[in-house]
Structures are given as structure tokens and as C-alpha cells.
């Protein structure tokens, strides 16, 4: 299991105002803020399931991190295509 400081950072991406934007603009500063070790910084900078998994990031939080960093993935996991059918049973 990854150290809590890693999970705490990821858990904050959709909750802490501005954190997601700051990660995109200056990841090293965010990594400093959360006290990440060098191997943890490398894994998050890589961002692949393999790197996150090797670090022991919780599978659901891996998904949070990838969704936060990859707009193309977020565009796949959405109800938008069904909007005209929802509410019309």
C-alpha cells in the first residue's frame, strides 16, 4: 500500500480547490507540498497504471489520478452520450 501522503494528494485532486490545476502547472511544487519521496514523485510523474500499481496506490485512486491527468479517459467515462434518454423511461 502506498504511503498515505500519496493517497492524500490524489484524494485531494477533486476536493481541494485549485489542487488539480496546480498539479498541472507545477507538479514538483505540489509533490513538495505533500512531502513525497523521490520514488513516489517518479511514479506520479509517470502516471501509468503500472507505475501507480507498483507504488501500491489503491486501484480506485489510480483511476482518480488517471482521470485527473487524462482528459481523453474522462471523455470515455461519461453519461453525455445518453443525455437525451435519461429522464425518459
Amino acid at each position: 500500500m502506498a504511503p498515505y501522503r500519496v493517497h492524500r494528494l490524489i484524494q485531494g485532486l477533486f476536493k481541494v480547490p485549485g489542487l488539480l490545476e496546480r498539479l498541472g502547472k507545477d507538479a514538483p511544487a505540489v509533490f513538495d507540498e505533500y512531502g513525497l519521496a523521490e520514488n513516489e514523485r517518479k511514479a506520479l510523474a509517470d502516471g501509468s497504471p503500472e507505475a501507480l500499481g507498483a507504488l501500491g496506490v489503491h486501484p480506485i485512486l489510480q483511476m482518480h489520478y488517471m482521470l485527473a491527468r487524462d482528459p481523453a479517459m474522462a471523455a470515455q467515462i461519461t453519461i453525455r452520450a445518453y443525455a437525451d434518454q435519461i429522464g425518459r423511461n
Partner: protein
Amino acid sequence: MGKIVGAFATSHILMSPTGVEERAQRVVGGMKEIGRRVAAARPDVIAIISTDHMFNINMGLQPPFCVGVADEYVPFGDMDIPREPFPGHRAFAEAFVERAAEHGFDLAKAEEYSPDHGVALPLLFANPERRVPVVPILVNINMQPIPSPKRCLALAGVLRESVERDLPAGTRAVILGAGGLSHWLNVPGMGTVNTAFDRQVLDKFMAGRSDELAALSVADIVQQGGNGGIEILTWMMAAATCPGARGEEIYYEAMPEWFTGMGGIALRL
């Protein structure tokens, strides 16, 4: 004395239909059919048993079970689900927690809870006008140890008792389990759909024998259905509120493109 007038279970995600248009449409059609049947049951309250995807219940605080006791919920908004509020049913939620305590369940309560897709997506179909008050009941499958199937079924029995004893006479309750079926999320095997396992699970529900799935351990279910497939606990709980009721398959589609088996059932009460 309240009464359970409908019990259902369904998967709780949707993804892009690109490349899987026909199957995706059958899935949506199934969710809409469940929505029609919920509406036909004319519920006064919907108790939805689902999971949180760590947008609310994360590593910071890890209750095995959590019940929403708020007057209103605003969806978290993941998967682009509209952040349109829907009512909670505080009185019944509180009564259920009290009754559970009498039966040895010390449930966590949540006043601040923003339902993610696990709860909010099924309700888009089951409560589209957001008029029926809802009681969210969350099973924490993201912690260790995950609540055991036997423990989950025992809590479902308490839910039934609470419907019958704590709701005013004539109150109509619908129980909706949400999650599953087999899927592996960000672990080896991701993209696998174990259709044999899904079919075995569905067959148990069809036969009115889903309680037999409680003989499986959490590890057994995870091994066969994946770390996401353990969400069938929510189906088992919904069915356990109506012991012996046979199920009707509303939809099933293997969706490896969505990394999951997708299904939905109605219990024949």
C-alpha cells in the same frame, strides 16, 4: 407498517457507446426498464444500496457501512452526472440506523455526502424527477476487511425489518442494489469479463437462491468476479430484503470495452 413494493439490482456505470452501440443501447434500455418498474411500484421511499468510489469515503476515514441521513443530496458530478439535488428521507434513515444498532450494527451516518455515480447514476433512471426521497446505504468495498457476505445479508434483514416496523402504515418502499457484475479495476485482469461467474450469479438470483452466494468468502468473489465484482454484495443485500423471491433478468451484456459485465434484475415479490 411499511412494505417493500419493489426490489431491483443493476450495474451503476455507463461509458462511451462508441464501437459498442448496440450493446450499450441494450444496457440503457435495461436501466430504463428498471426505472419504469420502479415508477410503477409508486414508492414513497427508495433505499439504494451501493458503493462509494472514494469521492466521499476514502482512505482518510473508512467505515464498513455508512447511511446517508441528510434531507437532501447533491451528486458529486463524476461521469458528468448533473449536480441536481434530490431529497433524502432523514426519518427512515435515522430509524434504520437505530434499529441496526439494536441488532449489533454500529453504522456510520453521513450528513455531508455527495453521491457519486454508484448512487446517482441508477437514480437517474429510478428517480428521474428526483421526487422520491432516498436513503443511501453504502457498503465499503474499498477497505480491508471488506464486510463479509454474511454480515451484509444480516444487515439487509435489518433493513427489511426497519421498513416493516419503522415506516408509517401504508408506506411503499423500493430497494435498489447497485454495482457489479464482474470487473477488475486497475489490477491484473483489467478488461476481463467473467461471463461464467456473472451467469452463475444471475442464475442464483433467478432461482431465488442468492442467499447461497453468502457461502462464498470475499476472497472467493474477488477471485472469480474481480475487485469490482465484489459489488454484487449490493445485489445480494437487495435480494435479501425479500427472502426467497425469484429474480427476473432485465438485461445482461458482457462489456469488455467498458471493463465489466453489466446486468440488471427485478425481484418478483
